C-alpha cells in the first residue's frame, strides 16, 4: 500500500490538517517528509495529523514527525496527533513519543 496525504489549512484555527492515507515506512517516508517540510516552510503553524486512515508507521516515519516537531517548536508551535489506530498508538507509547507530541483521541 502506498501513501497519499490530504492537506488543508484550517483558517478558523490557523492550523494545518494533514491526513495520511496508507503507510509511512522507509519507502514513503521521504515523500511524507517533503510534504511536511513544505507546509512548515509555507506557514510555520501547528499541524494536526489525523491518523484515521494511517495504517502503519515505522521508525523512519516517526523520525520525520520528530524533525517536523523540532522545526515547529522553534516558533512555539506543535504537532497534534488524533484518531490514531491501536497499533500506531502502541508504537508511540513504547517509544515514549506519546509524551513528546500532543495526542488526542
Amino acid at each position, binding site marked *: 500500500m502506498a501513501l497519499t496525504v490530504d492537506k488543508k489549512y484550517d483558517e478558523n484555527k490557523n492550523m494545518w490538517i494533514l491526513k495520511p492515507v496508507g503507510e509511512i*515506512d*522507509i*519507502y514513503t517516508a521521504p515523500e511524507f517528509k517533503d510534504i511536511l517540510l513544505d507546509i512548515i516552510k509555507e506557514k510555520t503553524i501547528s499541524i494536526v495529523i489525523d491518523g484515521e486512515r494511517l495504517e*502503519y508507521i*515505522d521508525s*523512519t516515519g*516517526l523520525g520525520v514527525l520528530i524533525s517536523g516537531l523540532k522545526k515547529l517548536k522553534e516558533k512555539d508551535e506543535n504537532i497534534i496527533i488524533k484518531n490514531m489506530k491501536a*497499533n500506531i498508538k502502541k508504537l508511540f507509547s*513504547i*517509544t515514549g513519543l506519546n509524551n513528546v507530541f500532543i495526542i488526542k483521541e
Partner: protein
Amino acid sequence: MLKDSIKMIIPVKPEYVSVVRLTASSIASRMGFNIEEIDDIKVAIGEACSNIIMDNTKEDIDIEVEFLLYKDKLTIKIDDSEKNKCDKEINSSSIEEMKDKELGLFIIKTLMDDVDCMNEEGINKIIMTKEIGVVENGYRNE
C-alpha cells in the same frame, strides 16, 4: 521442534519492505498469533529490513529473511549489516535524539520476546523470536 521454514530473498530496496511485512503477518496469522502479536512481528521485521537498507549503499546485494515456524513460536533470522550489530547498546538518553536506526533497534527489542545476534558463515544475522500468547496462568493470553 521445528515444523516448517520459509525463506525469502529481496533486493535491498525500500519498496520491498512492505512485501516482507505482509509475508510475516500472513505467516504469523496462519500460526495462530493474535492481532496484536501479528502487528508486533510486522513492525519488528519492517524495522530490521529498514536498518539494513539504511546501512547499505550498494544496490547489488540482497536481504535474506528466514522464517522458522515452531509449534509455539516464530523465529525470524535476517541478515544484519556489520555497522548495525544487534547487541549494540542504545545509549541515547532521549527518543528524540535517537537516530532512526537506533530507534528501529529499540522497537525490535521491545516488541519481540527474544532478540539475538550471531555470525553465520561470515554473515551477521539478527534472530528474533515471538512466542504465541505468553501464558501466565495456564491460559493463552488474548
